C-alpha cells in the first residue's frame, strides 16, 4: 500500500543522502521525494512517498527514526491529510490549440505563467490524480516539457509535526 511519510530532519549537508541511501541499501521503494528547509532554517521537511506491506512500512519508519539526522517523522496516510503536487508544463500553442489549452487550464484551475508566439507554460497544482487527468486532457496537444515537484503532504486539523 502507498504511504506518505513526512520527515523533519536536520538541515545539514548529507542528510538527504542518508535518507536516499537507506532506501537503496535496504531495497525500499521511493515513488517520490521532495525536501526543503522549513520556517526554522535548521530543519528541513521531507515528504516521501513509498509503498510496501505493513511490515515493510513499519521497518521503514523505524530505520528512518534510527538515522541521527532524523528529528521526527509521521505517516500521513494514517490520518486525514492533504496532498499537493506542483506541475509546470510547456506545450505547443498555435492556431486553435491556443484557445483550447486556455480553456482546459481554466477548467483545471491552472495558470498560464509564460507565453510565446508558439508556446504556453502552465502551472497547475493538485493531487497526483488531478495532474494526471490534466495531462490526459491535453492528449491532442504537443507537450514539450513536464516538470513535477513530487508530492507534498500535511495533516488536516490541528495536528503538527514538530
Amino acid at each position, binding site marked *: 500500500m502507498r504511504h506518505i511519510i513526512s520527515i523533519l530532519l*536536520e538541515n545539514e549537508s*548529507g542528510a538527504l*543522502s542518508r535518507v536516499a541511501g537507506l532506501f537503496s*541499501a535496504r531495497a525500499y521503494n521511493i515513488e517520490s521525494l521532495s525536501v526543503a528547509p522549513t520556517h526554522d532554517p535548521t530543519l528541513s521537511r521531507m515528504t516521501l512517498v513509498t509503498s510496501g506491506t505493513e*511490515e515493510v512500512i*513499519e*521497518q521503514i519508519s523505524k530505520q528512518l527514526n534510527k538515522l*541521527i539526522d*532524523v*528529528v521526527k517523522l509521521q505517516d500521513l496516510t494514517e490520518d486525514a491529510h492533504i496532498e499537493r503536487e506542483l506541475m509546470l508544463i510547456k506545450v505547443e500553442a498555435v492556431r486553435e490549440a491556443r484557445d483550447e489549452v486556455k480553456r482546459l487550464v481554466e477548467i483545471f484551475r491552472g495558470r498560464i505563467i509564460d507565453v510565446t508566439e508558439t508556446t504556453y507554460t502552465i502551472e497547475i497544482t493538485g493531487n497526483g490524480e488531478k495532474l494526471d487527468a490534466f495531462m490526459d486532457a491535453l492528449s491532442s496537444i504537443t507537450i514539450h516539457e513536464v516538470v513535477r515537484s513530487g508530492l507534498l503532504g500535511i495533516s488536516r486539523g490541528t495536528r503538527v509535526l514538530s
Partner: protein
Amino acid sequence: MELTGAEMIVECLKAEDVEYVFGYPGGAVLHIYDAFYKQNDVKHILVRHEQGATHAADGYARSTGRPGVVLVTSGPGATNAVTGIATAYMDSIPMIVITGQVPKALIGNDAFQEVDSVGITRPVVKHNFLIEDVKDVARIFKQAFYVATTGRPGPVVIDIPKDVTVAKAEFSYPSEISMRSYNPTVKGHPGQVRRAVDIMLSAERPMIYTGGGVVLGNGSEQLRQFTRKLGYPITQTLMGLGAYPATDKQSLGMLGMHGTYEANMGMHHCDVLIAIGARFDDRVTGNLEKFCPYATIIHVDVDPASISKNVKVDVPIVGEVVQVLNEFNQALEQTERTPNASALEKWWHQINEWRSQDCLKYDRESEIIKPQFVLEKLYEITKGKAIVTSDVGQHQMFAAQYYGFDEPRRWINSGGLGTMGFGLPAAIGAQLAHPDDLVACVTGEASIQMCIQELATCRQYGLPLKIINLNNGCMGMVRQWQEFFYEKRYAMSYFESLPDFKKVAESYGHIGIKVEKPADVVPALEEAIAQKDRLVFLDFITDQEENVYPMIPSGAGLNEMILV
C-alpha cells in the same frame, strides 16, 4: 585557549580518556601526527595496514566495552579502513574513526588521495561527520563519542580536511551534550514488562535466547540472576557467548546453524521464547517459516528496528538490556507467582534427552590432529580463562563450540560481517587492553594470511599473543559447503602453495612451532603458554576432511539438523 585543529583532536581524545589510538600516517593527517608527537597521554599504535587498525580498535572495544579509536589518512587510508568499519557496524561495536581529508578547497577536484569518505562509509556507520570549521571540532568529537557509545553502539567516522587541522580557534570541550534528533530509549515500558513477566511465568516449555546485546550492554550479572531465578534453559548466539557461563547446567550452548542439538530442538519446541539483546539473524533462525512455531515471543532490545524485523514478536520491549533485566528481576521478586515446576521438570527431562545425543562428539582416536581436539585442549590448559579472538570459518565455529566461555568479553569474533583477517589485529587490541591476560587468536591458514602483516605490529609492541593456526590446507568452510552442496567440486578452496608458517613467524621475530601429531598438541600448547613474553605461532596440521557438525542446511528449520 587557542589551539590548532590537530591539537584539539589530541585534547578531545584526552578528555574522553582514550588510552590507545590505532593508526597509520599519511599526507592528510601529518598535522595530527605532529600533535601526537608532542604529547604522551594518548598512545599511538602503528599498524601495518589500515584494516588492521580498525580491527585492533575493535578488539580493544570488544574486550573492554570502551570505544576503540582509529586514525588513518585520506583516500586509500580511509578505503582500507572500510572493511573494519563495516565489521564493527554489523556487530554494534563502539568505534571512532578519524579519517584525514584533502584540504577543503580541493574537495571534489579529484585531488591526490581524495575519496568521498563520508559517502563511502555512510552505509556502514552509525553516523559520520565532515568537519568544515575548526570551531566545530570539540562539539563534533563530543557528539561522535556520545553517538558511538550510547543506544545500540556503533562506529562513527569523523572526516577532517587537512586545512582544518592547521587552522586555529578557541577550544573548550563540552561536558554535556544533547541532540534533539537522538535520544535512545533506556527503560522498558512498565506495562510491557508486566505482560512479559506474566507470560514467562505461565510458560510450560520456556527458552531464554540471548545475544551480543547482553555483552555490549554489560548485562551479564543481571542475566545470571534472571536465568537462575526462573530455572529456565538458556541458549546464546555466537555473539552472546560468555554472558551466561557455558559451564552452568542451565546453559544449552550456542544455537543456530552450528549450534547444539539441544539448543535448536529447545528453540523449535518451546512455548515461550524470551529473546534478549539478540536480533534473529538468519544464521540463528534458519527457515523463518519454520521458526519457533509454538512460541509466544518476548523480545528485549535497545534498537526498535531490531524488533519484528525478521520475526514478528508478541511482546516487544525497547530499552537497555540491563535496565529491562533489572525490571524483570524486580517484578519476579515482587510477585507471588513462581514458574510451573511440574511442567518445567518435564521440559528439562526432554532437553536432557536431546542433550544425551552428545552432538559435539568427534573421533578422539584419530591419527591426524582434529581441530576440535586442539580447542578442547586449549580450553583445558587455559582453564577457560583466555581471551580468544577468531577469524572466520570452521575454526571460528569450533572455537565457539569447544571453548566454554564463562565470562563476557572473552570471546571476540566477527559474527555479523564474517570478516576473514579479523582475528590477529583484534587480538592486538585485546592484548594491549589486557596486558596480563592470555590472548589466543584461533585462526586458519586462509584467514591468517589476510592480515598477517600485523605480526610486525606484535613485534614492535612486544605482544605475546598465542596464535592457534588450524592449518588444514584449504578454506575449510568453503570446502565443507562444496562437499555438501556442490557434489565435491572443490572450486578454488585449496591452496596450491602455503608459506612455512614457522619461518614466517620467525622472520617477524617470533617463535614458530609446527605440530603434526595429536600427541604433540598438549606439549606445544604448554610450551607456547610458558613463553610469557613472546608471541608463539602454533601451526597445527589438522584433518582436511573434518566438517563442522551439527549443521542446519539453509532452508531447513531448527529441528532439521544434520548430526555426525
